[in-house]
């Protein structure tokens, strides 16, 4: 089953809070797990990505945690700001393919001042 399940659908936090978005997969034939950020009226843009042999990756205020045995990964946004308000998509790349991504359903994040 080539599917990525994402939760929650929506999330509201106060400025400075740490929103956490979770994703889970069943197919083990995935070899890359990127996160995309999408603002209204724009296309998704790559935020951060991780390989399954790494348990954590940080880039600025964004951190991916990866649990290979549980087939779960999550995005943490430290010190969240109103400008982080957007929709976030997790994705998984099918290994051995042509860079094909399977996207989660998305999480709409609102960061209140």
């Amino acid at each position, binding site marked *: 089953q080539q599917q990525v399940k994402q939760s929650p659908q929506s999330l509201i936090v106060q400025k400075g809070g740490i929103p956490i978005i979770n994703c889970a997969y069943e197919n083990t034939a995935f070899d890359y797990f990127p996160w995309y950020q999408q603002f209204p009226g724009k296309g998704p843009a790559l935020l951060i990505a991780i390989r399954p042999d790494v348990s954590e990756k940080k880039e600025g205020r964004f951190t991916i945690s990866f649990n290979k045995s549980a087939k779960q990964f999550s995005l943490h946004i430290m010190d969240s700001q109103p400008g982080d308000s957007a929709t976030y998509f997790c994705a998984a790349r099918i290994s051995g*393919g042509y860079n094909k991504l399977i996207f989660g359903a998305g999480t709409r994040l609102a960061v209140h001042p």
Partner: protein
Amino acid sequence: EAGVAQSPRYKIIEKRQSVAFWCNPISGHATLYWYQQILGQGPKLLIQFQNNGVVDDSQLPKDRFSAERLKGVDSTLKIQPAKLEDSAVYLCASSPGTGDFHEQYFGPGTRLTVT
């Protein structure tokens, strides 16, 4: 560098009409993708080109959707005839190639409304 360009940005048509979308990828990018993003869902890959050739069209409804990539650069996606359930944002993306992870760069999309 210029990003992925798409046109039109918005289109409203009646069901059973036809429509075409155009995409100009980032210069030099070998791989081009067309996605369908229904409201409240993640993007779903419709078709992927590697240079001129199709490498994945497994989720393209071929009875009504068609796509081509001329000379390995620009691409058009056509729907004929359109159905109500085709209302969505159609995203075009491009990436440098395959192999190790290649970031996909997305255009702003075309919002299609079928009435």
